């Protein structure tokens, strides 16, 4: 039997959040954490609340804090997560909790929208695709794969302090994804919008984002590139 401790909070009935323990029969299988949540919801308590969709690590719904580390529940096997025989599951830290493991991601999405995450190129498009060499396209690898799960930004102390002013690792990764795209012509405008003390420069290179990214991406490196572009622009 696996001992699971879950963060519970229902705004309608609970004064304060609390931890609830469950004893789950995993049949000694190395299940994913999401499978354990599904077992709890089906067999123990149908009111346990969390988000989930693809269950294969590409939709980004089930970012959670498992035994102290952010990750996606659907691709985190128990063998990688269990500490001291116990699984402690909490919502992603730093965002308001709506209910149980579900957080309000509005601030996170607002920072994403702030970087204008879409290609900008006012020149008339050709009749076919805009050409891009494999080398130019390779510049987008490690950037476009982001799934907006918020594991990175909610593990970042700078984002905890200034979620309204620091764009955060996820948003900045996307900002650089468009700065790095040979087809995008809005570089100057994009940099101007980021050139303040908070948007980019609140990153202190702690690299929590890199440690938790379930897709193996490196926001710190992308932020480094943006810093360089901003500094070059200033001189």
């Amino acid at each position, binding site marked *: 039997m696996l001992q699971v401790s879950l963060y519970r909070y*229902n*705004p*309608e*009935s609970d004064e304060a959040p609390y931890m609830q323990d469950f004893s789950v029969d995993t049949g000694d299988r190395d299940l994913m954490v999401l499978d354990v949540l599904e077992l709890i*919801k*089906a*067999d123990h*308590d*149908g*009111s346990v*609340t*969390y*988000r*989930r*969709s*693809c*269950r*294969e*690590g*590409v*939709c*980004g*719904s089930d970012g959670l804090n498992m035994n102290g580390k952010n990750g996606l529940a659907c*691709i985190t*096997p128990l063998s990688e997560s269990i500490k001291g025989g116990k699984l402690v599951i909490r919502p992603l830290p730093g965002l308001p909790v*709506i*209910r*149980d493991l*579900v957080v309000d*991601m509005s601030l996170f*999405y607002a920072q994403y*929208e702030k970087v*204008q*995450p*879409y*290609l900008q*190129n006012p020149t008339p*498009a050709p*009749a*076919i*695709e*805009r*050409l*891009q*060499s*494999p080398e*130019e*396209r390779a510049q*987008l690898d490690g950037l*476009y*794969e982001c*799934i*907006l799960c918020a594991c990175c930004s909610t593990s970042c102390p700078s984002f905890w302090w200034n979620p309204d002013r620091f764009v955060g690792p996820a948003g900045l990764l996307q900002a650089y994804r*468009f700065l790095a*795209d040979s*087809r*995008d012509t809005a570089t100057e405008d994009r940099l101007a919008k980021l050139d303040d003390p908070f948007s980019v420069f609140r990153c202190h290179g702690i690299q929590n984002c890199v440690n938790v990214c379930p897709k193996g991406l490196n926001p710190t490196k992308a932020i480094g590139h943006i810093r360089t572009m901003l500094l070059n622009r200033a001189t």
Partner: protein
Amino acid sequence: MRAALQLAQSGYKTAVISKVFPTRSHTVSAQGGITCAIASADPQDDWRWHMYDTVKGSDYIGDQDAIEYMCSVGPEAIFELEHMGLPFSRTEEGRIYQRPFGGQSKNFGEGGQAARTCAAADRTGHALLHTLYQNNIKNETVFFNEWFAVDLVKNQDDAVVGVIAICIETGETVYVKSKATVFATGGAGRIYASTTNAHINTGDGMGMALRAGVPAQDMEMWQFHPTGIYGAGTLVTEGCRGEGGYLVNKDGERFMERYAPNAKDLAGRDVVARSMVLEILEGRGCGPNGDHVKLKLDHLGEEVLESRLPGICELSRTFAHVDPVKEPIPVVPTCHYMMGGIPTNVHGQALTVDAQGSDAVIPGLYACGEVACVSVHGANRLGGNSLLDLVVFGRASGLFIEKSLREGIELRDASQTDIEAAGARLEALNAREQGEQVAPLRHELQEIMQNHFGVFRTGEFMREGIAKLADLRERVENVALADRSSAFNTSRIECLELQNLFETAEATAVVAEARDESRGAHAREDFTERDDENWLCHSLYQSEGKQVSKRSVNFTPQTVETFQPKARSY
């Protein structure tokens, strides 16, 4: 999302209701690519060849006017996506990279294997969905995220004038009034126990449509993807075989050479899936239970795998505990795609048939993507055609609605009674004190479908399945809430989803039993031959009275000659 983008760009007030944040939708899981004759890999490529392949792949019950529209408009729609920023992989010439996929040919089947599937590595769906969402942000589309559409609202003329929707976060329930309601609600793979589909693929559009008296077309046609990871069900793209991977049995034999001597592992998905099941049934399956086969990729080399199939390497390591660079991936045919759906024309308008058997438009209702049956996939969808379908017909729906709005759409307002009728199911669920829990009922439904309506089907066994479903119906209708809270109540949503799954499953079951022939994905052991005399047509299902009827297939494309049905071999 493509339809919403078109409408947002046109300046009309457009809202998207989505039960998940838009980038969590199942399109995100599409891997291998989007098939289209953009003439990058082969400058001579021709959309008519793509059309031929699609008609043949459909086993001749795809509508040729719709396939013609999709294949000919496709290139324009792909280039638009590229201009929006979709990060396609590239060729040395700087053009979009295209890879070979199953069922593709040059020169109407005479010129060998084509490479026609445009790809962004093996994350094409992710790249596509994010690009569409990003461009909707750019165009300031209004999103109702984590809102769940419950049922259609119809006025006294039987026109669709919006939906009842519930805000998942707060439980607030409203009537969303609309001049044009577009379903892009995706598939329902969760009717089966083993599926590549996301948890959210619960046939919500099908459920709403069937309850509102809208017919469903070709619901017996479910695609079983040859390569779902054994045990986990997660998808491994056909692009693996496009890049040179192949299937082996327990003897290490490349068995597809026996079943499809020309196309081998790139035959149609229905053909490959059936061949795999036959290998397993004949005792040549792998593993201690001999219940799967393996997909061999290691001969392609680490460099190709990491650059062309990085997502597959990741999934295989996570879910199969196998590194494809070193050893083959255990795979098994897994429910993947619903070829059937709400019948529509090429403008996305939902159709029904009138008393004379002629097509009649249902005012106010549109459908596109997997929930629609326009029909471009017929009895078997070709890989890479689903993304093209949703982009082309999402766009077409948007264009048509834009034109209709400009010309003026007059629908009578729903009365209070109409609105209450649409809200009745939710009301009843909220009021019910006793009943069974959702999870065991869902499990029971999925087991019935898995056992009685799988890759191979027989009449007697299907009739048993239909009887079991009939017993289950009342219990599903009386499902009870495990949680009565208003705040982010996922239990309530799962109950509503279960009822949608049930409607979809029952439609599938009844029509599968009725079609007494084998065609495309529908393989009957008691009727092993294709029967063009009686079944070269769509099936149509009405939930009231569980009526099955037939609807003709379109054989009159506008600019090319009809592709006549012939024996289908690969």
